[in-house]
């Protein structure tokens, strides 16, 4: 089975190539067969491999496909390495990816560029798989940039709208900034280790660096730069909300479930380096905490259904970063998996709603959909519950609770991080249920044209189940103490010990989290169902309005970057459009012409002045003879 490892990324690539080459000529049914089928087979292979992996429990499977190149000892290969961490990721990618592909065949059925869409999607899945399977950082970088490309292409899928194109460019450019930092990190790593092979680096790093070494810090920070860019974390988060310009399945797959968590993967993958640089690791946590708050508050104020989800994604990835930062590696990955389930679910539901409402995305124009779209309502409710971490029944509760717990009780945890996480959880459940109430309750404002078909509802239901039961593979100590997941990751990611003094009171904090979560639901209920006038009153308060606008604009980051970087750059570039250096050469030419005109006037055709020329020459020569 492990020899088929290469098939996992290769199949989607093959699909993409087929779709590019023959996309124009094949019927849609065949196109969707290629598009979905390639990912489906890939998922199948993954699952089979997963079974084998679980059965054999090896440290890793590895397969070198070919040596990419070899220059003076720099020998990266196209080689795949699968261990528990990658296993989790490829499972999510192929399986959730498959579901979303399936969903997309219905969602995109009316699109003219059907083939282009699936080609890009397949290409994305392939690149993402390469990213997580790569055994060296250069190959990882290939996947890393490849998913960026696909993200770009899919955000700008509806290219005729200029705004979509700009959103796509924004996404690509901002993530590229992070990538650049990462690339520099790779140079540094190569200089220090002479290789970019991940396993070699991880095993050599402790010998090369003592804990807290400057080199480790530098590398960790640079890698963090890449992670922050890709995962939409502070300060490079601004692209993700705009990325919602793409079709909803894209948002679900790329901008919620998989690509944006690449940063999480990278940090988890390079955990040794981060552990050697505690400062960097702390920064990861701080970034996560800050992002989850900022994005959460922004999500509170959005009206666009997908934008709320986008901010929520940023916020949830903030949790993952927080987990990684405090050293709760497996908790972060666990949350990644659960988040992939419920966020994909939410997006797909949103997609179904949007499709049903003629591409209406504004929640203010929705409402009352509970009756007209029951399946969507229930699945959405499950997803929302999981996002809001409703206690006990949802998977989100278990994963998030673990993070909150380690943020406080982990080795690197502290009260501030915990408080931020808790506040974030509160806000999360407010905006989640604001969304639910605005969309499904109240009077219907837009007519539902075509209810979702089977191809749409099946993925929803499957994902909803996963969002409910996914959490039960990892239960807290005082709650059955099931540690299947972290045990699986044990060989790859270091385990975390909770501080003993707090461990006894763990139930207290779980209770607190549950209360906060439910409290959030209640607040949303209060404002949007029970007494909407409260909201009106709030909206008359100047401070609140300003705050609302500030959050709505994503804490002004867009405006800040616009004024700080974009505008000056465009201004400078346009100022220098004619190339200032060129004018130097033009000036030279002008000077020569000037001399020409001057000298030409001496050639005035008058004989006497020519004689004069000779006399001047004579004087010159005699003077030189005399005085020199």
């Amino acid at each position: 089975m492990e020899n088929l490892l290469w098939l996992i990324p290769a199949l989607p690539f093959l699909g993409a190539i087929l779709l590019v080459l023959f996309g124009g000529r094949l019927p849609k049914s065949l196109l969707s067969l290629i598009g979905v089928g390639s990912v489906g087979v890939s998922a199948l292979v993954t699952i089979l491999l997963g079974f084998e992996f679980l059965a054999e429990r090896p440290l890793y499977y590895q397969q070198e496909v070919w040596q990419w190149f070899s220059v003076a000892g720099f020998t990266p290969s196209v080689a795949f390495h699968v261990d528990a961490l990658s296993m989790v990721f490829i499972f999510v990618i192929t399986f959730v990816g498959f579901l979303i592909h399936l969903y997309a065949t219905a969602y995109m059925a009316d699109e003219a560029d059907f083939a282009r869409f699936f080609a890009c999607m397949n290409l994305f899945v392939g690149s993402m798989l390469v990213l997580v399977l790569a055994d060296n950082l250069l190959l990882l970088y290939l996947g890393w940039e490849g998913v960026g490309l696909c993200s770009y292409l899919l955000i700008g899928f509806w290219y005729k709208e200029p705004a979509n194109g700009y959103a796509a460019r924004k996404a690509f450019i901002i993530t590229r900034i992070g990538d650049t930092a990462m690339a520099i990190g790779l140079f540094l790593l190569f200089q220090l280790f002479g290789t970019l092979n991940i396993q070699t680096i991880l095993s050599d790093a402790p010998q090369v660096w003592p804990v807290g070494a400057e080199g480790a810090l530098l590398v960790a920070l640079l890698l963090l730069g890449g992670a922050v860019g890709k995962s939409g974390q502070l300060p490079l988060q601004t692209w993700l909300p705009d990325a919602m310009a793409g079709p909803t399945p894209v948002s679900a797959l790329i901008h919620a479930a998989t690509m944006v968590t690449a940063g999480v993967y990278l940090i988890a993958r390079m955990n040794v380096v981060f552990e050697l640089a505690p400062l960097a690791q702390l920064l990861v946590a701080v970034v996560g905490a800050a992002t989850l708050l900022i994005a959460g508050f922004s999500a509170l104020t959005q009206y666009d259904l997908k934008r709320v989800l986008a901010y929520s994604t940023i916020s949830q990835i903030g949790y993952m970063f927080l987990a990684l930062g405090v050293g709760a590696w497996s908790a972060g990955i666990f949350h990644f998996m659960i988040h992939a389930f419920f966020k994909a679910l939410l997006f797909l539901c949103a997609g179904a709603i949007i499709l049903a409402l003629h591409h209406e995305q504004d929640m203010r124009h929705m409402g009352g959909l509970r009756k007209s779209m029951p399946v969507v309502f229930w699945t959405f409710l499950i997803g929302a519950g999981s996002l809001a971490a409703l206690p006990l029944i949802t998977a989100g509760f278990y994963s998030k609770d673990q993070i909150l717990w380690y943020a406080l009780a982990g080795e690197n945890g502290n009260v501030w991080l915990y408080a931020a996480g808790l506040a974030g959880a509160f806000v999360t459940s407010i905006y989640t249920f604001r969304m639910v109430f605005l969309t499904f309750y109240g009077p219907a404002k837009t007519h539902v044209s075509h209810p979702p078909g089977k191809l749409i509802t099946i993925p929803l239901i499957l994902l909803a189940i996963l969002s409910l039961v996914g959490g039960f593979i990892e239960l807290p100590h005082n709650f059955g103490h099931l540690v299947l997941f972290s045990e699986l990751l044990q060989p790859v990611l270091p385990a975390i010990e909770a501080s003993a003094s707090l461990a006894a009171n763990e139930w207290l904090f779980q209770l607190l989290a549950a209360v906060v979560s439910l409290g959030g639901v209640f607040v949303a209920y209060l404002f949007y169902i029970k007494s909407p006038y409260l909201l009106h009153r709030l909206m008359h308060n100047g401070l609140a309005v300003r705050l609302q606008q500030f959050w709505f604009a994503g804490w002004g980051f867009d405006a800040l970057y616009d004024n700080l970087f974009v505008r000056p750059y465009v201004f400078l570039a346009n100022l220098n459009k004619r190339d200032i250096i060129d004018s130097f050469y033009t000036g030279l030419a002008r000077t020569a012409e000037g001399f020409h005109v001057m000298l030409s006037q001496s050639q005035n055709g008058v004989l006497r002045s020519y004689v004069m020329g000779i006399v001047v020459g004579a004087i010159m020569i005699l003077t030189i003879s005399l005085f020199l």
Partner: protein
Amino acid sequence: MSTASMEAALLLAGILFMLGLISVLIRRNIIFMLISVEIMLNAAGLAFIVAGTRWVQPDGQIMFIFILTMAAAEVSVGLALILQIYHQLKTLNSDAANIMKG
């Protein structure tokens, strides 16, 4: 005659040369220019004779004869050309002959 006047004679040649030169510069009439050049050539011939005298050699005088020949040939061609120009341009003003410039 002493050597001092040898220098004086050379100086005389120089002065005549310069006078011819001034004349070329200030005259617009082409004939005058030609005459002035003759003065200069004559001055050069005088210089040769002075030099020949100084070294008691006939070579200076021979050069003078050559110069004389050359002056004659030049004047003849020059005058023929001047006639031609007068027919073409109806003037002897050298400044007027400036169709070509730049």
